C-alpha cells in the first residue's frame, strides 16, 4: 500500500469513529482533520468531499466484514458451523471495533440521501453481499439449508445480526454480547436449515 493509500485508510478509520458517534451531519471535515492532526486543506487532497469520504467509509467497513466472512466461507467446516463461526466474529467486531457496525446502522442506513449517487443498491456493500450469497448457496446445494427466496434468507440473516448489534449499541443487553453469539447463530440456523 502506498503512503497516500495508508493515509486515506487512516482518515477513513478516524471518520468511521466520528461519524458513528456524532452522526454524518454533525461531523465536519475540520473535525476529522483535527482527529488526524492534519490541516483542513490537506484533507481535500485525499477526499474531495465529506460525501465521497462517507461512500469510501461504507465500502471500507463492509469489506472488513466481507473479509471475515470470506475466511469463514473458505474453512472446511459445515454450513451450520460457518454460521456459528461468523456470528462469533461479527459480535467480536461489534465489541472491538463498534464503529464498523455502528457506521452501517447509524449512518449508512439512516442517511440514504448521502449514498443515493454511487452507492445505490448493493454497489458499495457488494463484496459482503457476495460472501453471504456464497454461504447461502453452498449450504442449500449441500442440503444443509432449505431452498427459499434469496432476499427472505438474506434479510433474516443480516436482520438478526444487525438488530442485535443495535441492541448492543443501545446498551440494553443484560449479558455480555458474546454470551448471545451461539443463541443468535442457532436462531439463524433454524430459520435456514433443511427440512424433509
Amino acid at each position, binding site marked *: 500500500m502506498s503512503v497516500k493509500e495508508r493515509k486515506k485508510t487512516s482518515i477513513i478509520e478516524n471518520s468511521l469513529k466520528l461519524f458513528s458517534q456524532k452522526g454524518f451531519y454533525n461531523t465536519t471535515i475540520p473535525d476529522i482533520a483535527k482527529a488526524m492532526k492534519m490541516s483542513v486543506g490537506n484533507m481535500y487532497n485525499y477526499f474531495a468531499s465529506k460525501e465521497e469520504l462517507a461512500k469510501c467509509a461504507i465500502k471500507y467497513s463492509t469489506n472488513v466484514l466481507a473479509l471475515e466472512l470470506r475466511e469463514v466461507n473458505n474453512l472446511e467446516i459445515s454450513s451450520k458451523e460457518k454460521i456459528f463461526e461468523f456470528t462469533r466474529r461479527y459480535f467480536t467486531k461489534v465489541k472491538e471495533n463498534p464503529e464498523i457496525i455502528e457506521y452501517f446502522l447509524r449512518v449508512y442506513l439512516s442517511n440514504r440521501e448521502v449514498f443515493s449517487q454511487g452507492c445505490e443498491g448493493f*454497489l458499495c456493500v*457488494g463484496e459482503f453481499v*457476495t460472501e453471504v450469497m456464497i454461504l*447461502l448457496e453452498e449450504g442449500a446445494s449441500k442440503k444443509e439449508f432449505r*431452498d427459499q427466496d434469496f432476499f427472505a434468507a438474506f434479510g433474516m440473516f443480516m436482520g438478526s445480526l444487525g438488530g442485535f448489534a443495535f441492541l448492543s449499541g443501545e446498551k440494553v443487553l443484560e449479558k455480555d454480547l458474546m454470551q448471545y453469539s451461539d443463541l443468535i447463530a442457532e436462531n439463524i440456523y433454524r430459520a435456514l436449515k433443511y427440512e424433509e
Partner: protein
Amino acid sequence: MRSKPTLVWLQALTCNGNTQSLLSSNHTRFEQFLLAFDIIYHPSLTNTITLKEVVSSNSEIDFLLVEGAITSQTHFFSLSDMSVKTILQTLAQRASYIISVGSCAVFGGIHAKFEQNNDIQGVEKSLEHITPKSNHKIIHLTGCPVHPEWILQTLFTLKAKGVIQLDLHNRPVELYSHLAHHGCTRNEYFEWKVEAHDFGLKEGCLFYDQGCRGPMTHSSCNKILWNDVSSKTRVGMPCIGCTEFDFPRDNLFETKKNIGIPAEVPLGISKRAYLSITGVAKTFKIERLNKKIIDENS
C-alpha cells in the same frame, strides 16, 4: 484420396435427427456435397445398393459417418438381420475416416439411459481396438442434432487436407471452441441480468430462469446459424447443452438455483466473481432493456 471420395452413412439407434439436419442444409452447400462425394449408401437418399451389399462388399470406404448409438443386442435393434455393432465393426475396418455424427453416436446420448439394455454405447467404445485406416482419430461431432454445416465443413476439410484439428474430446476445434453464448443476440440482457419472462420472447436472457446452457456449452450455434438465419436462443428457446457430454440432463427448461442463486455459473468464471458482477449489474435498472423492443401498442 480419390477426387470423389466414397461415403457411407450408417444409421444405428437414432431418431433420424442428424439425417433431417443434413437434408435441411443450405441447398448450395448440399449440392456441393453431392457433387464432391460419392455417396455409396445413405438410408434416406436413393441408393443403388442395399446396406447388406455394402457390408458384404470388400470395397474401401473413404468416409464412414455413423448416426445413432450402437448396441450388439439384436432383440432390441437389428439391420439386415445383423446387429449394428457387427455392421459398424465390419465397415470400420474398411474406412479411412470415421465420423460420429451426433451425441448418440459419440457417447450413446439418450439411448444410453435406457436401463433395460446396458450395452448401448457410442461408436468409439463399440469399435474397441479398430482404428481408421488413415490413423486419424475418430471424429466426434456432438449435438442433438449436429448442425449440417458442421458435417459438411468436417468432410470438406478432411477431403482437402486429410486432417482436422480436434479438441480434447476429439471434436473439431473450429466448430467447438466457442460457446453457444458467443453471438447470442440476448447478450446485453445477460450483462444486465434482465430475465426473459417466457419462451419465444425477443427480450430478456434465458439463463436465469429458463435453463439456458449457452454460457457453458461448447458449440457454434450462434456463429454458424441454423437455416443460415437463426438459433434456439435467437427465437427464445434456451440452449439445452446438447453438445456436452452430460446431455440430456433432467429439467432442461429450468435453471437450477439454490436460495435464488444459480447452482452453475458461466464456464471458467468463479462463483464469487460471477456473483460480484451480478450484484452490481442488478443494481441498475436499464429502462430500455425492460421494455418491448418493438411495442405494437405504443
